């Protein structure tokens, strides 16, 4: 047994150092634990400052003692390597552990132990913790805004249907895989648009929509019996003819009567709100801003000076102003630019404004990808005799877009996080609903619960999106 030197622990007296160190660290954590969870200060007999810093000092000494290089114990080496490389690191590690232990009890008690969720009025919230009853009572409003309760199934049904249609790509067989891009870029947005504007909004237009559905269903069924040679023309001509026939010749009166029986109540966009509005706005802006941004970025790199400078002007203008002024513009300035009898719905104006705004950012991201491609790709494509559009669609864009997946995902995340700003024009998505609920005289004083709830929701959505984009990036990563 060699001499013990507590200032420089070494491997020879491993056990002595290890036991002393571990006991000291454990004891220091135990003191803090007792102090924070059971409000018991077992070292209170010591003078003030010493008893306050005692856990830190003890833990520090303990960590110093177990800092032994190549001890041979796997766990100890791991600890030393990760949290205990030198005195400063040990100090910071201890501090973090203590802060976590200290802040757990108040957080736990606020979130769970002292919180209330039972009951259906403000009176049950007597504890010092959170009042989740408030969230429970207002949950419907936070999700659907002022949308009338009996009609909310329409929102649910649309979202479920759209989610289902959105998942088609995962189940598509090899045969249909090549049409997927077309489906997602053209067909799916149109279906979504019809769903949201005619189904969620309801009203007389919905009947038009029903003719369209009937026409489409009949033509698809008939389509199975058509030779593939004519399919292209068939799917353009037949649905339109059927639609016109249905609407103006056959069932016109009957369908109106039928429609009147179970007419969907018209819900104006001013009543939409809550999380569903967040989804609707971000969904449409996402769909629209991508193609606009794509064209802007191509325009910015165009050889035609007029197109180039118009694109640059567009991009720099939208990137230079804050979104809130764009929304101000769409709500107070834009109506001045329209003929007096022309009225564009508030929600549509907001969606156009946000789409144009985010498109500028998307354009810059895509331009980065286009610039990152080596010239050889362009030259090779041209030498094969490809024209501008063929070259871009087949060679350039697939590679460029692959490169900019993270950037585009970030822009989309920014878009989702920007949607609460539509409160400027009086549309109340979830954050706006929270502010409305907060001022309700029966439910004053629960701002914290509301914001925590919304924060958690947004965190889940945005975090999931960023993780998904990371996976996508890994999936499409190619060696260059």
């Amino acid at each position, binding site marked *: 047994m060699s001499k013990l030197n507590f200032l420089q622990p070494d491997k020879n007296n491993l056990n002595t150092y290890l036991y002393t160190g571990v006991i000291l660290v454990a004891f220091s954590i135990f003191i803090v634990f007792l102090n924070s969870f059971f409000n018991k200060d077992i070292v209170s007999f010591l003078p003030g400052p010493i008893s306050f810093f005692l856990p830190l000092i003890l833990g520090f000494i303990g960590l110093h003692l177990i800092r032994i290089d190549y001890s041979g114990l796997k766990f100890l080496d791991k600890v030393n390597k990760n*949290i205990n490389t030198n005195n400063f690191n040990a100090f*910071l*590690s201890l501090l*973090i*552990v203590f802060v976590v232990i200290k802040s757990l009890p108040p957080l736990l008690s606020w979130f769970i132990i002292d919180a209330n969720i039972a009951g259906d009025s403000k009176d049950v919230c007597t504890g010092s913790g959170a009042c989740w009853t408030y969230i429970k009572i207002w949950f419907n409003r936070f999700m659907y805004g002022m949308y009338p309760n009996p009609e909310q199934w329409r929102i649910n049904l649309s979202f479920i249907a759209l989610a289902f249609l959105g998942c088609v790509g995962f189940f598509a067989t090899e045969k249909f895989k090549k049409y997927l891009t077309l489906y997602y870029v053209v067909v799916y947005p149109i279906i979504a648009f019809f769903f949201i504007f005619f189904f969620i909004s309801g009203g007389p237009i919905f009947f038009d929509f029903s003719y369209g559905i009937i026409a489409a269903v009949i033509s698809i069924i008939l389509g199975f019996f058509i030779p593939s040679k004519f399919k292209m023309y068939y799917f353009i001509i037949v649905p339109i003819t059927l639609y016109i026939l249905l609407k103006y010749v056959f069932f016109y009166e009957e369908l109106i009567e039928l429609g009147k029986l179970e007419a969907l109540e018209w819900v104006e966009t001013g009543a939409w709100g809550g999380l569903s509005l967040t989804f609707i706005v971000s969904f449409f802006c996402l769909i629209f801003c991508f193609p606009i941004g794509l064209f802007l970025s191509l325009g910015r790199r165009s050889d035609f000076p007029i197109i180039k400078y118009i694109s640059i002007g567009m991009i720099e203008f939208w990137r*230079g102003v*804050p979104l809130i002024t764009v929304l101000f513009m769409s709500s107070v300035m834009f109506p001045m630019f329209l*003929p007096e009898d022309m009225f564009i719905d508030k929600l549509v104006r907001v969606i156009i404004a946000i789409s144009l705004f985010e498109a500028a950012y998307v354009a810059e991201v895509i331009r980065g990808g286009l610039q990152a491609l080596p010239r050889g790709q362009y030259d090779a494509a041209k030498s094969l005799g490809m024209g501008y559009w063929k070259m871009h669609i087949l060679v350039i864009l697939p590679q460029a877009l692959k490169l900019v997946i993270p950037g585009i995902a970030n822009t989309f995340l920014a878009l989702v996080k920007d949607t609460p700003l539509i409160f400027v024009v009086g549309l109340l998505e979830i*954050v706006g609903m929270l502010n409305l609920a907060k001022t309700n005289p029966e439910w004053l004083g629960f701002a914290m619960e509301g914001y925590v709830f919304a924060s958690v929701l947004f965190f889940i959505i*945005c975090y999931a999106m960023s993780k998904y984009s990371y996976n996508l990036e890994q999936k499409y990563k190619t060696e260059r």
Partner: protein
Amino acid sequence: MNIKKILPQLLTLLVVILIFGFFSYNAQVNMENRGITFGYGFLSQESSFDVQFSLIEYDGSHSYFRAYLVGLLNTILVSVIGIIFATIIGVIVGIARLSNNYLIERSASVYVEFFRNIPLLLQIFFWYFAALRALPLPQDTEPMFGVFFLTIKGFFVPAFVWNNLDIFIYSIIAAIISIIFIRIYAKRKQENEGVQTPVLSISIGLLLILPILSFLFGGVDASVEVPVIKQLSQSGFTYEGGIKLPPELISLALALSLYTATFIAECVRAGVQGVSKGQKEAAASIGLTPNQVLKLVVMPQALRIIIPPTTNQYLNLTKNSSLAAAIAYPDLVLVFAGTALMQTGRAIEIVSITMLTYLSLSISISIFMNWYNKKIAIKEK
């Protein structure tokens, strides 16, 4: 020139002109119908509204232009505060994310992931309506360090009362100018003779000594004015004296800096990681000390990667400060595009001025950044 090149351009131009023509024709008709004439003359009219927080003297008898200035200054104030704090937090967190200490790295990434994924507006509301509303009333406030009072009505801090403030400022300016000269001299000396001058300690010394000299010999004199509690009514108290930072400003600056810091942290991390390991090893192998490696090899290269995106973040912060309108902090958007627009009804003029202000700000910064990027770009042969 063939037709294939000219036609698309002409068509685009035609479409743009048509859209603009359509808009301006409608605007003209609409304004005629409402009896408004287009013009910026209203800027000199009396504004007759009050702003609750302003850096320059302002009340209802001043002009709309003055109101615009008040809003602009408030925007700049909150942006500068936010930029300073966001940089400090961002750099610390960015370095913490590179730490080999597992706990530090984890806590830094939890912070980044958490604050980055929550909308800024929600954070502003959280601080303003939830967190700062939990503060005590003025009469119940425990002072921090005896002179700071954090109350529900705002943060009261002591103010300095200066004598001969101009001499003090001159001394600081003189110190800064001499530091710049010393830096230039030191760089030239190093390039010519390879001798390093301790620029940092000289600079800190100068920055301390010159102002102290101004106190001793320049007749500069500063005293501290501590806020004192004052009763307004039966239950209404406030503090008098010192500087009052309204809760709107605090919550806005807090939210902006915590949110932007996450992005700056990522920039810093990417910058430091972007310096290849070989550079550090090469520097160490020619005998530089770790500090010299950091100062002379790693930092100059890392800054080249860090600065452009960080400037972008500063710009974003400035633009995001317009969210102030949501909590009634009187910034440019609230004062000018809000109150002034409501009073005058001149939507086109006011919104265009507001947008142009932000636009000129960001375009000038991006021109500067392009110039800077060209200057620092590695010149490869």
